[in-house]
Protein backbone atom coordinates (compact mmCIF):
# COMPACT_ATOMS: atom_id res chain seq x y z
CA UNK A 1 0.00 0.00 0.00
CA UNK A 2 0.98 3.63 -0.27
CA UNK A 3 3.65 4.48 2.25
CA UNK A 4 1.62 7.57 3.19
CA UNK A 5 -0.59 5.31 5.30
CA UNK A 6 2.39 4.07 7.30
CA UNK A 7 2.52 7.45 8.99
CA UNK A 8 -0.82 6.71 10.64
CA UNK A 9 -0.38 2.94 10.92
CA UNK A 10 3.30 2.23 11.53
CA UNK A 11 2.45 -1.35 12.48
CA UNK A 12 1.81 -2.03 8.79
CA UNK A 13 5.13 -0.72 7.52
CA UNK A 14 7.35 -3.05 5.53
CA UNK A 15 4.85 -5.84 5.86
CA UNK A 16 3.13 -7.99 3.29
CA UNK A 17 -0.16 -8.57 5.01
CA UNK A 18 -1.81 -11.91 4.38
CA UNK A 19 -5.49 -12.28 5.18
CA UNK A 20 -8.18 -14.78 4.08
CA UNK A 21 -9.55 -14.39 0.56
CA UNK A 22 -12.91 -12.69 0.18
CA UNK A 23 -14.42 -9.45 -0.99
CA UNK A 24 -12.33 -6.30 -0.96
CA UNK A 25 -14.51 -5.06 1.89
CA UNK A 26 -13.67 -8.19 3.88
CA UNK A 27 -9.99 -7.77 3.10
CA UNK A 28 -10.00 -4.18 4.35
CA UNK A 29 -11.86 -5.14 7.48
CA UNK A 30 -9.24 -7.80 8.13
CA UNK A 31 -6.52 -5.17 7.83
CA UNK A 32 -8.55 -3.01 10.21
CA UNK A 33 -8.25 -5.80 12.78
CA UNK A 34 -4.48 -5.48 12.58
CA UNK A 35 -4.50 -1.70 12.43
CA UNK A 36 -7.63 -0.34 14.15
CA UNK A 37 -8.96 2.76 12.40
CA UNK A 38 -7.50 1.80 9.04
CA UNK A 39 -10.84 1.70 7.26
CA UNK A 40 -11.66 5.23 8.45
CA UNK A 41 -8.81 6.42 6.25
CA UNK A 42 -9.64 4.61 3.03
CA UNK A 43 -13.46 4.38 3.33
CA UNK A 44 -16.14 6.92 4.19
CA UNK A 45 -18.84 6.34 6.79
CA UNK A 46 -20.91 4.34 4.30
CA UNK A 47 -18.10 1.97 3.44
CA UNK A 48 -17.40 3.52 0.04
CA UNK A 49 -13.89 4.10 -1.17
CA UNK A 50 -12.88 7.70 -0.53
CA UNK A 51 -12.85 9.92 -3.59
CA UNK A 52 -9.10 10.27 -3.92
CA UNK A 53 -8.18 6.73 -2.96
CA UNK A 54 -7.65 4.04 -5.55
CA UNK A 55 -7.53 0.31 -5.06
CA UNK A 56 -6.47 -2.48 -7.42
CA UNK A 57 -7.07 -6.20 -7.19
CA UNK A 58 -3.95 -7.61 -8.79
CA UNK A 59 -3.57 -5.20 -11.73
CA UNK A 60 -7.26 -4.34 -12.17
CA UNK A 61 -8.85 -1.24 -10.70
CA UNK A 62 -11.67 -2.06 -8.32
CA UNK A 63 -15.06 -1.79 -10.02
CA UNK A 64 -17.44 -1.51 -7.08
CA UNK A 65 -16.18 1.57 -5.24
CA UNK A 66 -19.40 1.83 -3.24
CA UNK A 67 -19.61 -1.49 -1.43
CA UNK A 68 -16.28 -3.06 -2.45
CA UNK A 69 -17.85 -6.35 -3.43
CA UNK A 70 -15.10 -7.27 -5.92
CA UNK A 71 -13.67 -10.67 -5.07
CA UNK A 72 -10.04 -11.36 -4.23
CA UNK A 73 -8.97 -14.92 -5.00
CA UNK A 74 -6.48 -17.01 -3.04
CA UNK A 75 -2.96 -15.66 -3.68
CA UNK A 76 -4.46 -12.46 -5.09
CA UNK A 77 -3.08 -9.04 -4.14
CA UNK A 78 -4.72 -5.77 -3.17
CA UNK A 79 -2.91 -2.49 -3.78
CA UNK A 80 -4.03 0.78 -2.15
CA UNK A 81 -2.77 4.12 -3.37
CA UNK A 82 -3.90 7.72 -3.48
CA UNK A 83 -4.37 10.24 -6.24
CA UNK A 84 -1.49 12.68 -6.38
CA UNK A 85 -2.37 16.35 -6.44
CA UNK A 86 -1.87 19.72 -4.79
CA UNK A 87 1.09 21.58 -3.45
Amino acid at each position, binding site marked *: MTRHLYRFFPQLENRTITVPAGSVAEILNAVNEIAPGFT*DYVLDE*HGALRRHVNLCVNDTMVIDRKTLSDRVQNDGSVFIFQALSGG
Partner: protein
Amino acid sequence: MSNMILLGTRKGTVIFDRISDNWHPRQITHAGIPVCYTARDPRDGTIWASLDHGHWGPKLSRSRDHGATWEVISTVKYPKGARHIVKYLPTPDFVPETPVAQPEYADAAVYKIWNIAFGNANQPGRLYAGTIPGGLFVSDDGGDSWGLNRPLWNHESRGGDLFVGDATSENRWGGTPASVDYGVFEPGIHSIIVDPRASEHIHIAVSSAGVIETTDGGQTWKGRNCGMLMDYLPNPAADWGHDPHFVTSCPGQPDHLWQQNHCGVFYSDDGAQNWKKVSMPDVGVNFGFPVAVDATDGRTAWVVPARADSARMAIDGGLFVARTTDGGQSWQSFCDGLPQDNAYDIVLRHALDSSGDCLCFGSTTGNVYLSEDRGETWQCLGNNLPPIYSVRFG
Protein backbone atom coordinates in the same frame (compact mmCIF):
# COMPACT_ATOMS: atom_id res chain seq x y z
CA MET B 1 -4.53 37.60 28.76
CA SER B 2 -3.81 34.53 26.69
CA ASN B 3 -0.31 33.14 26.42
CA MET B 4 -0.96 30.88 23.44
CA ILE B 5 -1.91 31.41 19.81
CA LEU B 6 -3.06 28.46 17.70
CA LEU B 7 -2.78 28.55 13.93
CA GLY B 8 -4.47 26.13 11.58
CA THR B 9 -2.53 26.17 8.33
CA ARG B 10 -2.37 24.36 5.03
CA LYS B 11 0.66 22.47 6.30
CA GLY B 12 -0.24 21.77 9.91
CA THR B 13 -0.80 23.30 13.34
CA VAL B 14 1.51 26.05 14.51
CA ILE B 15 1.47 27.09 18.17
CA PHE B 16 2.97 30.32 19.44
CA ASP B 17 3.74 30.67 23.16
CA ARG B 18 4.24 33.94 24.97
CA ILE B 19 7.47 33.64 26.92
CA SER B 20 8.85 36.70 28.74
CA ASP B 21 6.64 39.03 26.68
CA ASN B 22 7.83 37.58 23.37
CA TRP B 23 5.94 35.17 21.14
CA HIS B 24 7.81 32.04 20.07
CA PRO B 25 6.59 29.47 17.52
CA ARG B 26 6.90 25.79 18.26
CA GLN B 27 7.85 23.27 15.62
CA ILE B 28 4.87 22.52 13.40
CA THR B 29 2.45 19.75 14.43
CA HIS B 30 0.47 17.60 11.96
CA ALA B 31 3.21 18.48 9.47
CA GLY B 32 2.00 18.34 5.88
CA ILE B 33 -1.67 17.92 6.78
CA PRO B 34 -4.11 20.79 6.13
CA VAL B 35 -5.60 21.97 9.43
CA CYS B 36 -8.70 24.08 8.86
CA TYR B 37 -9.44 24.95 12.48
CA THR B 38 -7.78 24.83 15.88
CA ALA B 39 -9.06 25.88 19.28
CA ARG B 40 -8.38 25.32 22.96
CA ASP B 41 -11.19 24.25 25.26
CA PRO B 42 -11.14 26.83 28.06
CA ARG B 43 -12.74 24.35 30.46
CA ASP B 44 -9.99 21.75 30.57
CA GLY B 45 -7.23 23.04 28.27
CA THR B 46 -7.68 20.36 25.60
CA ILE B 47 -6.42 21.59 22.23
CA TRP B 48 -8.42 20.55 19.18
CA ALA B 49 -7.41 20.56 15.53
CA SER B 50 -9.57 19.72 12.55
CA LEU B 51 -7.51 17.77 10.02
CA ASP B 52 -8.58 18.28 6.45
CA HIS B 53 -6.88 15.28 4.86
CA GLY B 54 -7.07 15.50 1.13
CA HIS B 55 -7.17 11.74 0.69
CA TRP B 56 -7.99 10.10 4.00
CA GLY B 57 -11.12 11.93 5.11
CA PRO B 58 -11.62 14.57 7.79
CA LYS B 59 -10.42 13.76 11.29
CA LEU B 60 -10.20 15.52 14.61
CA SER B 61 -6.98 15.59 16.57
CA ARG B 62 -6.90 16.18 20.31
CA SER B 63 -4.11 17.03 22.74
CA ARG B 64 -4.64 16.87 26.48
CA ASP B 65 -1.07 17.81 27.35
CA HIS B 66 -0.79 21.31 25.89
CA GLY B 67 0.22 20.10 22.45
CA ALA B 68 2.96 17.65 23.43
CA THR B 69 1.10 14.58 22.14
CA TRP B 70 -1.99 14.16 19.98
CA GLU B 71 -4.58 11.49 19.32
CA VAL B 72 -6.84 11.13 16.29
CA ILE B 73 -10.63 11.04 16.62
CA SER B 74 -12.48 9.47 13.68
CA THR B 75 -15.99 9.37 15.11
CA VAL B 76 -17.60 12.39 13.43
CA LYS B 77 -19.74 10.41 10.99
CA TYR B 78 -23.21 10.72 9.56
CA PRO B 79 -25.51 7.95 10.74
CA LYS B 80 -26.90 5.40 8.35
CA GLY B 81 -29.89 6.86 6.53
CA ALA B 82 -28.71 10.48 6.68
CA ARG B 83 -29.43 11.94 3.26
CA HIS B 84 -29.50 15.38 1.76
CA ILE B 85 -30.79 16.96 -1.41
CA VAL B 86 -27.95 17.23 -3.83
CA LYS B 87 -26.94 20.59 -5.15
CA TYR B 88 -24.86 20.97 -8.22
CA LEU B 89 -21.50 22.37 -9.03
CA PRO B 90 -21.81 25.96 -10.24
CA THR B 91 -21.53 25.38 -13.96
CA PRO B 92 -22.17 28.28 -16.40
CA ASP B 93 -25.79 27.19 -16.89
CA PHE B 94 -26.45 26.78 -13.17
CA VAL B 95 -29.41 28.93 -12.06
CA PRO B 96 -29.59 28.93 -8.25
CA GLU B 97 -32.97 30.68 -8.20
CA THR B 98 -34.60 27.87 -10.10
CA PRO B 99 -35.33 24.94 -7.83
CA VAL B 100 -34.60 21.52 -9.13
CA ALA B 101 -37.84 20.02 -10.40
CA GLN B 102 -37.20 16.61 -8.93
CA PRO B 103 -34.88 16.51 -5.94
CA GLU B 104 -31.97 14.15 -6.10
CA TYR B 105 -30.61 12.65 -2.94
CA ALA B 106 -27.22 11.55 -1.71
CA ASP B 107 -26.06 9.73 1.37
CA ALA B 108 -24.36 12.22 3.64
CA ALA B 109 -20.64 11.91 4.29
CA VAL B 110 -18.46 14.36 6.19
CA TYR B 111 -16.29 16.34 3.80
CA LYS B 112 -14.92 18.88 6.24
CA ILE B 113 -15.11 19.56 9.97
CA TRP B 114 -15.18 23.32 9.64
CA ASN B 115 -15.66 24.53 13.19
CA ILE B 116 -15.37 23.27 16.76
CA ALA B 117 -17.12 24.92 19.72
CA PHE B 118 -17.32 24.18 23.41
CA GLY B 119 -20.23 23.97 25.79
CA ASN B 120 -20.47 26.07 28.90
CA ALA B 121 -18.86 25.12 32.20
CA ASN B 122 -22.13 23.57 33.37
CA GLN B 123 -21.95 21.06 30.50
CA PRO B 124 -18.55 19.43 30.90
CA GLY B 125 -17.73 17.23 27.95
CA ARG B 126 -20.18 19.01 25.60
CA LEU B 127 -18.63 19.93 22.25
CA TYR B 128 -20.04 20.95 18.89
CA ALA B 129 -18.66 20.41 15.40
CA GLY B 130 -19.95 22.10 12.28
CA THR B 131 -19.44 20.29 9.01
CA ILE B 132 -19.76 20.37 5.27
CA PRO B 133 -22.37 19.21 4.13
CA GLY B 134 -24.22 21.12 6.83
CA GLY B 135 -24.58 18.74 9.77
CA LEU B 136 -24.12 19.87 13.36
CA PHE B 137 -22.53 17.19 15.52
CA VAL B 138 -22.66 17.08 19.31
CA SER B 139 -20.51 15.24 21.81
CA ASP B 140 -21.17 14.83 25.52
CA ASP B 141 -18.09 12.80 26.38
CA GLY B 142 -15.29 15.17 25.55
CA GLY B 143 -15.23 14.27 21.86
CA ASP B 144 -14.91 10.49 22.09
CA SER B 145 -18.27 9.99 20.39
CA TRP B 146 -20.46 12.29 18.34
CA GLY B 147 -24.08 12.39 17.27
CA LEU B 148 -25.84 14.30 14.50
CA ASN B 149 -28.34 16.94 15.60
CA ARG B 150 -31.32 15.61 13.69
CA PRO B 151 -33.80 18.47 14.16
CA LEU B 152 -31.44 20.77 12.29
CA TRP B 153 -30.53 18.17 9.68
CA ASN B 154 -34.23 17.41 9.16
CA HIS B 155 -35.27 21.07 9.17
CA GLU B 156 -38.01 22.09 6.76
CA SER B 157 -35.56 24.48 5.11
CA ARG B 158 -33.57 21.40 4.00
CA GLY B 159 -36.49 19.39 2.71
CA GLY B 160 -37.68 17.81 5.94
CA ASP B 161 -36.91 14.42 7.42
CA LEU B 162 -35.16 12.50 4.66
CA PHE B 163 -34.48 9.60 7.02
CA VAL B 164 -38.09 8.51 6.60
CA GLY B 165 -38.80 9.44 3.00
CA ASP B 166 -38.48 11.97 0.24
CA ALA B 167 -38.55 15.72 0.66
CA THR B 168 -41.67 17.32 2.08
CA SER B 169 -40.48 20.88 1.53
CA GLU B 170 -38.10 22.75 -0.71
CA ASN B 171 -34.43 22.79 0.14
CA ARG B 172 -33.47 26.41 0.82
CA TRP B 173 -29.86 25.80 1.72
CA GLY B 174 -27.28 26.54 -0.94
CA GLY B 175 -23.75 25.33 -1.33
CA THR B 176 -20.56 27.02 -0.20
CA PRO B 177 -17.60 27.47 -2.54
CA ALA B 178 -15.55 26.00 0.30
CA SER B 179 -17.05 22.63 -0.63
CA VAL B 180 -15.94 22.69 -4.24
CA ASP B 181 -12.53 21.30 -3.28
CA TYR B 182 -14.32 18.06 -2.44
CA GLY B 183 -16.04 17.85 -5.81
CA VAL B 184 -19.43 18.87 -4.44
CA PHE B 185 -21.42 22.05 -3.84
CA GLU B 186 -22.94 21.65 -0.40
CA PRO B 187 -23.63 23.88 2.59
CA GLY B 188 -21.38 24.15 5.60
CA ILE B 189 -21.64 25.23 9.24
CA HIS B 190 -18.71 27.48 10.08
CA SER B 191 -19.93 29.36 13.16
CA ILE B 192 -21.33 27.97 16.42
CA ILE B 193 -22.10 30.31 19.31
CA VAL B 194 -23.21 28.98 22.68
CA ASP B 195 -24.84 31.60 24.88
CA PRO B 196 -22.77 31.84 28.09
CA ARG B 197 -25.97 32.66 30.00
CA ALA B 198 -27.98 29.65 28.78
CA SER B 199 -26.47 26.48 27.34
CA GLU B 200 -29.61 25.58 25.43
CA HIS B 201 -29.40 28.84 23.47
CA ILE B 202 -27.20 28.47 20.40
CA HIS B 203 -26.72 30.34 17.17
CA ILE B 204 -25.10 28.74 14.17
CA ALA B 205 -24.25 30.20 10.78
CA VAL B 206 -24.44 28.33 7.50
CA SER B 207 -22.99 29.10 4.11
CA SER B 208 -25.25 29.44 2.25
CA ALA B 209 -28.40 29.54 4.36
CA GLY B 210 -27.90 32.14 7.09
CA VAL B 211 -28.07 32.38 10.86
CA ILE B 212 -30.16 29.79 12.70
CA GLU B 213 -31.08 29.78 16.38
CA THR B 214 -32.23 27.26 18.92
CA THR B 215 -33.46 28.15 22.38
CA ASP B 216 -34.23 24.60 23.48
CA GLY B 217 -30.90 22.88 23.18
CA GLY B 218 -31.25 21.94 19.53
CA GLN B 219 -34.74 20.43 19.53
CA THR B 220 -36.11 23.20 17.30
CA TRP B 221 -34.39 25.75 15.06
CA LYS B 222 -35.47 29.04 13.48
CA GLY B 223 -33.83 31.18 10.84
CA ARG B 224 -32.64 34.56 12.11
CA ASN B 225 -31.93 36.59 9.01
CA CYS B 226 -34.26 39.57 9.39
CA GLY B 227 -32.44 42.63 8.09
CA MET B 228 -29.86 40.60 6.22
CA LEU B 229 -29.46 41.63 2.60
CA MET B 230 -28.10 39.76 -0.40
CA ASP B 231 -27.42 42.40 -3.01
CA TYR B 232 -26.79 39.77 -5.67
CA LEU B 233 -30.20 38.05 -5.61
CA PRO B 234 -33.60 39.13 -6.97
CA ASN B 235 -34.95 39.24 -3.42
CA PRO B 236 -32.11 40.56 -1.26
CA ALA B 237 -34.15 40.15 1.92
CA ALA B 238 -35.16 36.51 1.41
CA ASP B 239 -35.49 34.38 4.52
CA TRP B 240 -32.85 31.92 3.37
CA GLY B 241 -29.86 31.75 1.10
CA HIS B 242 -27.65 34.19 2.98
CA ASP B 243 -23.94 33.61 3.07
CA PRO B 244 -22.56 34.84 6.38
CA HIS B 245 -18.82 34.43 6.27
CA PHE B 246 -18.48 34.32 10.01
CA VAL B 247 -20.75 35.14 12.93
CA THR B 248 -19.68 35.76 16.50
CA SER B 249 -20.99 37.37 19.66
CA CYS B 250 -19.73 39.29 22.66
CA PRO B 251 -19.21 36.90 25.59
CA GLY B 252 -20.10 39.63 28.10
CA GLN B 253 -23.11 40.86 26.11
CA PRO B 254 -24.28 37.80 24.16
CA ASP B 255 -27.18 39.62 22.51
CA HIS B 256 -24.63 41.61 20.55
CA LEU B 257 -23.76 39.58 17.45
CA TRP B 258 -21.67 40.50 14.45
CA GLN B 259 -21.18 39.05 11.03
CA GLN B 260 -19.16 39.78 7.94
CA ASN B 261 -20.38 38.61 4.55
CA HIS B 262 -20.35 39.35 0.83
CA CYS B 263 -22.63 42.34 1.15
CA GLY B 264 -21.29 44.10 4.19
CA VAL B 265 -20.79 44.06 7.93
CA PHE B 266 -23.95 43.36 9.90
CA TYR B 267 -24.64 43.93 13.60
CA SER B 268 -27.43 42.87 15.91
CA ASP B 269 -27.98 44.10 19.44
CA ASP B 270 -31.07 41.97 20.06
CA GLY B 271 -29.79 38.43 19.83
CA ALA B 272 -29.99 38.19 16.01
CA GLN B 273 -33.70 38.97 15.95
CA ASN B 274 -32.81 41.89 13.69
CA TRP B 275 -29.64 42.64 11.75
CA LYS B 276 -28.49 46.09 10.69
CA LYS B 277 -26.02 46.77 7.93
CA VAL B 278 -23.21 48.88 9.36
CA SER B 279 -20.76 48.88 6.46
CA MET B 280 -19.02 52.03 5.33
CA PRO B 281 -17.65 51.36 1.86
CA ASP B 282 -16.23 54.86 1.63
CA VAL B 283 -13.75 53.99 4.39
CA GLY B 284 -13.17 50.51 2.98
CA VAL B 285 -15.35 48.61 5.44
CA ASN B 286 -17.66 46.41 3.42
CA PHE B 287 -16.27 43.09 2.26
CA GLY B 288 -14.23 40.59 4.23
CA PHE B 289 -14.36 37.26 5.99
CA PRO B 290 -13.58 37.47 9.73
CA VAL B 291 -14.97 39.62 12.50
CA ALA B 292 -13.88 39.76 16.15
CA VAL B 293 -15.84 41.23 19.05
CA ASP B 294 -14.62 42.62 22.32
CA ALA B 295 -15.09 40.30 25.30
CA THR B 296 -17.11 42.77 27.35
CA ASP B 297 -18.34 45.56 25.07
CA GLY B 298 -20.67 44.27 22.39
CA ARG B 299 -20.46 47.50 20.40
CA THR B 300 -16.73 47.09 19.80
CA ALA B 301 -15.64 44.93 16.87
CA TRP B 302 -12.80 44.55 14.41
CA VAL B 303 -12.69 43.52 10.74
CA VAL B 304 -9.91 43.10 8.21
CA PRO B 305 -11.39 44.62 5.06
CA ALA B 306 -10.67 43.42 1.57
CA ARG B 307 -11.54 44.34 -1.97
CA ALA B 308 -14.95 42.85 -2.76
CA ASP B 309 -15.94 40.42 -4.11
CA SER B 310 -14.36 39.15 -7.25
CA ALA B 311 -10.87 40.30 -6.18
CA ARG B 312 -10.67 39.10 -2.55
CA MET B 313 -7.40 40.79 -1.70
CA ALA B 314 -6.13 43.69 0.37
CA ILE B 315 -7.42 47.06 -0.78
CA ASP B 316 -4.96 48.99 -2.96
CA GLY B 317 -2.07 46.82 -1.85
CA GLY B 318 -2.25 47.90 1.78
CA LEU B 319 -3.42 45.89 4.78
CA PHE B 320 -5.44 47.56 7.54
CA VAL B 321 -7.72 46.68 10.42
CA ALA B 322 -10.91 48.64 11.10
CA ARG B 323 -12.44 49.01 14.55
CA THR B 324 -15.77 50.32 15.70
CA THR B 325 -16.62 51.16 19.29
CA ASP B 326 -20.16 52.36 18.67
CA GLY B 327 -21.91 49.43 17.08
CA GLY B 328 -20.77 50.23 13.56
CA GLN B 329 -21.88 53.86 13.43
CA SER B 330 -18.26 54.83 12.78
CA TRP B 331 -15.08 52.96 11.94
CA GLN B 332 -11.46 53.80 12.57
CA SER B 333 -8.70 52.28 10.44
CA PHE B 334 -5.30 51.23 11.73
CA CYS B 335 -2.30 50.29 9.62
CA ASP B 336 0.70 51.00 11.87
CA GLY B 337 2.91 47.93 11.57
CA LEU B 338 1.00 46.44 8.65
CA PRO B 339 2.38 46.37 5.08
CA GLN B 340 1.17 49.20 2.86
CA ASP B 341 2.87 48.31 -0.40
CA ASN B 342 2.38 45.24 -2.55
CA ALA B 343 0.30 43.43 0.06
CA TYR B 344 -2.29 41.09 -1.41
CA ASP B 345 -3.25 39.19 1.73
CA ILE B 346 -6.71 37.86 2.36
CA VAL B 347 -7.74 36.86 5.88
CA LEU B 348 -10.15 33.95 6.00
CA ARG B 349 -13.21 33.61 8.22
CA HIS B 350 -11.56 31.93 11.21
CA ALA B 351 -8.25 33.76 10.98
CA LEU B 352 -8.87 36.76 13.29
CA ASP B 353 -9.28 36.53 17.05
CA SER B 354 -9.24 38.76 20.09
CA SER B 355 -8.28 38.18 23.71
CA GLY B 356 -8.36 41.11 26.09
CA ASP B 357 -6.43 43.93 24.45
CA CYS B 358 -4.75 41.51 22.03
CA LEU B 359 -5.77 40.73 18.47
CA CYS B 360 -4.11 38.40 16.03
CA PHE B 361 -4.76 37.54 12.41
CA GLY B 362 -3.12 35.42 9.76
CA SER B 363 -3.44 35.52 5.99
CA THR B 364 -3.42 33.08 3.13
CA THR B 365 -0.08 34.63 2.21
CA GLY B 366 1.39 33.16 5.39
CA ASN B 367 1.73 36.39 7.36
CA VAL B 368 0.77 36.65 11.04
CA TYR B 369 0.23 39.96 12.79
CA LEU B 370 -0.38 40.67 16.48
CA SER B 371 -1.67 43.76 18.24
CA GLU B 372 -1.47 44.24 21.99
CA ASP B 373 -3.24 47.61 22.05
CA ARG B 374 -6.70 46.79 20.71
CA GLY B 375 -5.69 46.87 17.08
CA GLU B 376 -3.99 50.25 16.95
CA THR B 377 -0.42 49.03 16.30
CA TRP B 378 0.78 45.71 14.96
CA GLN B 379 3.85 43.51 15.01
CA CYS B 380 4.65 40.69 12.64
CA LEU B 381 5.02 37.22 14.14
CA GLY B 382 5.97 35.52 10.88
CA ASN B 383 6.08 36.03 7.13
CA ASN B 384 6.80 32.58 5.81
CA LEU B 385 4.10 30.40 7.27
CA PRO B 386 1.84 28.22 5.12
CA PRO B 387 -1.51 29.67 4.06
CA ILE B 388 -3.38 30.30 7.31
CA TYR B 389 -6.94 29.07 7.77
CA SER B 390 -7.55 29.83 11.43
CA VAL B 391 -6.13 31.87 14.30
CA ARG B 392 -7.33 31.37 17.85
CA PHE B 393 -5.95 32.46 21.19
CA GLY B 394 -5.54 29.51 23.53
